[in-house]
Structures are given as structure tokens and as C-alpha cells.
């Protein structure tokens, strides 16, 4: 299970808001939590169980981070206000920092649906089952999340004219 889902769990944690420095620890906690309840997990539901556990871990990490930021300024916010050079836009590390900034400014509800749909490529049906919310709610959140994401990316690149596709 670790070999099959290690990258998946790490990616969900990171994109859902776990700071880079804490991803390894939360990956371990996620697998331990699932291992301790393996008897409750259907053989074909391991990924879903890991996903739900990882999302809870990330939520906890975000809350912890938010408490820290009540004391300190957000580094990510400062970073994304810096003007970008074209070559910087395509730099992988820089892209990761920018993505963190954009996702970090989205509301938790929109971010979660956005990450699961756009980055994990889950279907809306799967997202509804994972989050235990109606499909209509998923569709609504996804529409708003995509618009929000594109607005923020346009603001980063200075572009304001494109429309959000759906």
C-alpha cells in the first residue's frame, strides 16, 4: 500500500495545505492511521480511505499554520507580490511557491474541490463521495474554485482579459 500510494498521499497533503517541511511526517501519520484501521477498510477502498485521512491531516496542518501566521507575516503572500520575470514563471520551484500562494488564498472548501478535481483528476462523483456532499455542491464549488484560481493566476501574470472556461 505504501509503494502504491506514497506519492498520492504526499501530493494530496502538499496541495491541500501541509507545509513542505511537514509532509513526510504527515505521510507517516496518514499511513499509520490507515494501518491501524485496516480491518475497517474494504480492499477496494484503500485509496479513498487514505485520501480522507490525508485531507484531515492537511486540515490540521493548515490550522496549525494559520495560528503561526497570526504571529508572523505570510511568506507566501510576500513572495507572490514580487513581480515575475518570464523565465521565473516556468521554474519548477518557483511554480510550486506560486501555486502554494494561490491555493493558500482560496477558501478551504474551494481549494479542496479544486485540488481533487484539477490536480488529482477525481471525477465529481468521486469527490462528492469522498467529501460526503451532494454532487451539485461539488459542481458549484468547482465552478467558483476554477474562476477564483484563474483570477489569481491572471493577477500574478498581469493578464486580466481572459475568461474562465468551464
Amino acid at each position: 500500500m505504501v509503494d502504491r500510494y506514497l506519492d498520492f498521499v504526499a501530493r494530496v497533503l502538499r496541495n491541500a495545505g501541509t507545509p513542505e517541511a511537514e509532509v513526510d511526517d504527515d505521510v507517516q501519520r496518514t499511513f499509520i492511521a490507515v494501518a491501524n484501521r485496516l480491518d475497517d477498510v474494504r480492499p477496494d477502498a484503500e485509496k479513498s480511505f487514505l485520501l480522507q485521512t490525508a485531507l484531515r491531516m492537511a486540515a490540521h496542518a493548515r490550522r496549525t499554520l494559520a495560528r503561526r501566521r497570526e504571529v508572523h507575516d505570510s511568506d507566501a503572500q510576500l513572495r507572490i507580490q514580487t513581480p515575475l520575470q518570464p523565465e521565473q514563471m516556468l521554474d519548477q520551484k518557483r511554480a510550486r511557491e506560486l501555486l502554494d500562494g494561490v491555493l493558500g488564498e482560496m477558501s478551504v472548501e474551494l481549494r479542496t474541490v479544486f485540488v481533487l478535481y484539477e490536480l488529482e483528476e477525481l471525477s465529481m462523483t468521486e469527490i462528492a463521495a469522498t467529501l460526503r456532499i451532494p454532487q451539485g455542491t461539488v459542481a458549484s464549488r468547482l465552478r467558483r474554485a476554477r474562476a477564483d484560481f484563474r483570477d489569481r493566476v491572471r493577477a500574478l501574470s498581469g493578464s486580466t482579459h481572459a475568461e474562465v472556461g468551464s
Partner: protein
Amino acid sequence: MTDPTRLLDTPESELERALLDAGRSYTASSSSRTKTLLALGLTGVATSTAPSAVAATSSTLSKGALSKVAVAVIVLGSIAVPVWRYFHRASSAQGPRPAPAAHLGAALRAPPLPVESAPVVESAKTAAAPLTSARIEGAESQQPAAPSAATAHADSRPASAPPLAAELAALDAARTSLSRSDPSAALLALDGYGRNFPHGRLRLEAEVLRIAALAKSGQSDAARKRAEAFLRRHPDSVLASRVRGYVGL
């Protein structure tokens, strides 16, 4: 309700594409697998992980487990260095060595293998978990080209290890039977797993499932005997609490 086209399929800018790519391409760190297996008690020792990486392992590991790792690394490192020197001298004494590039080939292009790695892999038999091939695989994945003792040890494995997916499928069959309250079918599936994967990487999980199946089929004595043996060998395994629960220890 149809799913809309994903943004990465129709990005409106290179920046948007780069950001989405960054999100999709994130992978676990190189040491994350080892740390996670350690935390799960599935690889008693940190395979070829450097001592610093072991030291960096998170607080999810117990102090006891960490101290065992540290002792194993120190003791085995002290054995490995003289052994390596002995063989190094022996090979030097056999005459002039060929040019390094020809002699070692890709090994010289690979990062150096920590001297601890080989004995740590070997030591795993006594340290905690029996997933030797999994540990070796971990060592290989981190140092793929180094002609180390770890690689030599790995040669004792079957030439072509069966894919992990096949092992998972075999164990899934056993788990499904157990969840349907059919321990006899689970035991049959586990017998099949043992025959098909005598060097399986998931033998530890298979043993736990067997204990559960024996307990649920009313073979309490056999289940208890196996559970006690399991707990003696793997007292710190994350699976230990499940094993205790099956037999009421």
C-alpha cells in the same frame, strides 16, 4: 452531470500550465518511503538510508525504535568498514587493477553507497521485520548502480520478483474473504499466497491476516501461538495492536 474539461487540458497561459503541472507532479521525498515503512514497523532498520536521514525521522517513531536503529547502524557500521577494507585489500593484492572507469563502470557515476547500508539490510533479520526483499528493494531504489554488498545480497532473491500488484491482489482476496466472515476461504487464499510468493514482500501482512483467519475460524490455539511468535519478532510493529486484538492478548 458531466465533468468539465480540466484546466490543464485548456490552460489560458503558460503560468497557469506551470502551476498546475507543479501541483500534479509533486512527489514524496526520496526518504519518505523508508521513513514511512520504519514508522509502520515494516522494515526494522532504515535500509540504505543515511544516518542523518534516520535521525531526521519524525516524532511518529518511538524513542525505542530510534535507539534500536542507531545501535544497529553503529554496530553494523563498525563491522562493515573492516570487512570492506579486507576485501578492498584483497582485490588490490590480486594485481594491478584496471582503470576505474572500466572496472566499476556505472558505479563510479552513482553516488557513494553509505558503508552502513549493506549490513543494515543484512541485520534486518534480527532487528525487526522479515520484509527483507522490500528492504533490499528500497536500498536498490536509492542507490541503483552501486555494486555493493546490498546488491550482492539482493542476488539471493529470485531473478524476477513478481510484481507487487499481484501480491496485493492475493492478499486482497484473503481480506475480502475475512470481511465476508469466511475465514476458511481466507486461509486458502493465504496458502495460495505462500505458494505463489515464497519470498513475498508482504509476508508480514499475510501472517497478520492468517492470525486473524485462524482466530475467526475457531482455531484459537494456533492463532495464539502464531500471534505470540509474531509479537516476539515484531514488538514495535504497527501491526502488533491488531495481532493482540485478534487473540485477546
